[in-house]
């Protein structure tokens, strides 16, 4: 019987790959793909820096410093924005893969959906980390003053934001069957950022927007990221916001993913 079957590995000994197909070759090729997509990289690295320089001019007027919104607080807000932008575009790459039929091609391989999602989130988080790092480097050059531990802690917390938005990006990637998914998402991210208090203090917003602010997915993340710098009392609803939004986006992405694979 074995003579009729090709290959060096007998049928009965064939195995599925470990970890559902998750591996570093896959990850490194995915990262290379991302880097090759210059527009995504430019947008996620350059836009936050441009914003940072813009708000620097704003700070010189003293308007924000007066109410305790320091250069550090601005920098952290913009780092969260960068992480959000990066992670969302990383996650949203699935829409391109769906449009090109790659998702279907992958279903003919041993790759498990969970391993695929893990790779996508990792790539998105890596891009998010790069974005946070670039913003912080510009902050340091610009003379932002914080304790070394505060630099590290706020940086890590701002980066953690990318997990929420990697899920958001995946959700959007499965929702929108478009190759230009980021052009649709960008305005949404703008609203999240503004109302979530990333750029300007929530106290400066009109009162109706102040009421909405705590319900933005950015609100909890930004508040937690700034906590090591600002201090004061820790509001548990921040954490609740992060957990609920991450779970919500991830669940929505999972539901759409299932729908996608069932359609076959």
């Amino acid at each position, binding site marked *: *019987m074995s003579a009729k079957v090709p290959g060096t590995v007998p049928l009965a000994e064939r195995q599925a790959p*470990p970890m559902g197909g998750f591996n570093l*070759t896959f990850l490194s090729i995915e990262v290379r793909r991302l880097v090759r997509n210059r527009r995504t990289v430019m947008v996620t690295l350059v836009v936050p820096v441009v914003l940072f320089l813009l708000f620097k001019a704003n700070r010189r007027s003293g308007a924000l410093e007066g109410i305790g919104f320091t250069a550090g607080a601005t920098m952290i807000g913009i780092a969260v924005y960068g992480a959000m932008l990066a992670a969302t575009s990383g996650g949203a790459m699935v829409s391109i893969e769906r449009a090109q*039929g790659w998702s279907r091609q992958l279903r*003919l391989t041993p790759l498990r959906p969970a391993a695929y999602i893990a790779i996508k989130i990792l790539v998105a988080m890596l891009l998010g980390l790069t974005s946070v790092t670039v913003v912080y480097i510009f902050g340091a050059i610009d003379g932002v003053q914080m304790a070394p531990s505060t630099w590290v802690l706020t940086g890590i917390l701002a980066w953690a934001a990318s997990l929420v938005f990697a899920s958001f990006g995946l959700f959007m990637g499965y929702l929108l069957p478009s190759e230009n998914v980021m052009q649709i998402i960008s305005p949404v991210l703008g609203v999240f950022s503004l109302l979530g208090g990333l750029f300007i203090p929530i106290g400066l917003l009109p009162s109706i927007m102040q009421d909405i602010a705590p319900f933005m997915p950015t609100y909890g993340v930004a508040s937690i990221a700034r906590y090591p710098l600002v201090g004061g009392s820790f509001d548990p609803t921040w954490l609740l916001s992060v957990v609920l939004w991450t779970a919500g986006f991830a669940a929505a992405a999972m539901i759409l993913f299932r729908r996608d694979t069932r359609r076959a």
Partner: protein
Amino acid sequence: MADEPGSAAAIDLHNVHRTFGAIRAVDGIDLHLELGEIAALLGPNGAGKTTTIDMILGLGRPDQGSVSVLGMSPSAAVSRGLVSAVMQTGGLLKDLTVRETVRLTASLYAEPRPVDDVLDRAGITHLANRLVGKCSGGEQQRVRFALALLPDPALMALDEPTAGMDVEGRRDFWSAIRSDAERGRTVLFATHYLEEADAYADRIILLRQGRIVADGTAAEVRSLSSGRSVRASLAEADKRTLSSLPGVRSVEIRGDRVLIQTMDSDAVARYLLTATAAHDVEIVAHNLEDAFLALTSDEPAPAVESRAADGSAA
């Protein structure tokens, strides 16, 4: 012995049904494919070829019936690299090179064949560093073929693999498949090209409206068409008597016209003219193309179905 994957059939479909809304894409298919067979699923568009292959690959589930591949579920077979496929619609990433695409896919298997080996077999070594988006349709199809070779599968399914290729591309593609299959791989391919099934398959499974209407070697299927059809006007024709005449494969009655497919048109004509009131008798010979059209037309299924489908038609 029966529990070993190696001793199981390559494909076992039992009474498989699959509907999409009101459309019965697959309407009761039984198919048994042994290891080492090279079989064609032949049929017009909409006959259920793609739906059948999708279920064999685990891309779709049957509403009813069972699908087993190498003695296990399709998804288990896919995850072990025992089954791979070249699909009509499966996309490739335009922003990866050919080599990166193959390397990435290789990384997903437990024990893939070497990337260079696979590129060579698919005849795309010279394209290795080209972006997939810059490859022609035929070249991309070879990339898909290379990906399908990676796990060194026991069964390879191909869904209209040469659609959109020119004549030369088609011939090169098939010679690559054929030389690969000589090593004992089981191959199931869907096609709507009669000549492709005839030239490359040892066995032809003819599908129509989600059912198997003929199944046999190319020669057997060809012989289905070697008979003639006899038409006549005959009021109140007795289908059973006509069906029992020697050589008759099918009898179709539409109003007072009868259409009889037979291997012995003389006997049918003699009977009609001597024992019945039939008139306007016509005898028409048909070729392979006619048989294909007759067996796969959208008209109600002729009686040939049941007999041809169990392989005793020849």
